[in-house]
């Protein structure tokens, strides 16, 4: 799989549910279609919350992984149509 390059990084480490998805939603609204947001998070619920949020809002989690003490998500902004 080719490397994913992010356009913007959002650091949600130390924040608990529901603030990560609230911040992600706000940040994504500033991106254009196809742009990628990289998110750092320590909220374990984000493993379920972020993909569910993306599916509901027409965005796509390209991949996610654990990096030491935190989680890393790459989310691509959708075309804006469900």
């Amino acid at each position, binding site marked *: 799989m080719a490397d994913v390059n992010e356009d913007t990084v959002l650091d949600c480490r130390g924040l608990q*549910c529901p603030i990560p998805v*609230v911040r992600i939603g706000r940040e994504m609204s500033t991106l254009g279609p196809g742009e990628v947001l990289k998110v750092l998070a320590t909220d374990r619920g984000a493993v379920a919350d972020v993909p569910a949020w993306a599916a509901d809002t027409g965005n796509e989690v390209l991949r996610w992984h654990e990096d030491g003490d935190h989680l890393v998500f790459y989310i691509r902004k959708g075309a804006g149509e469900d």
Partner: protein
Amino acid sequence: MSLEVRSESSVVTHEDVRLIVRQELERALKRDPAAQRACIIASKGTLDWAYPPLILASAAAAAGMDAAVFFTFYGLNIIHKDFRRRVKVSPVGNPAMPMPVPMADTFTSLPGMKGMATWMMKDKFRRKGVAALEELLEVCRESSVRLIACALTIEVFGFQESDFIDGVEFGGAGAFMSDARRSHVTLFV
């Protein structure tokens, strides 16, 4: 998604009809406005119970839904202008509350214990990165979550409309039901 009806023959088969109905249903469900709405009742006014309705409404709004929270009975505490002082938690009558050491009800009901329990919970939440109530209320207002205060309980408890934070609407069971019947997500907290 494209509608594909086998057109080699002019006969529309049973299978064709099923396919058309399935595709049209899927299309309609995708556009269903009720899937984009959440109506939540907040009926409790303690610190622990103030969190779920605000967290769920914030998450709904973040997912692009129209969310409304209807505050009734003790839930009015959460949107009272003086919520920082009014919203408390007590270990009395709640055997599930984690305590640093086991304590008898006769001890936890002593004067000052409610204040201490409230301070401890707020302190723990802050250290764990949980948003404070004022932050969640702010998120709700910024993301256009409707905050609706129950007019009946305001009357019964002797509150004034001016007792509540800015942006609060006022309504009753009829208004809530009108919203709720058009929402797939309805929760009573």
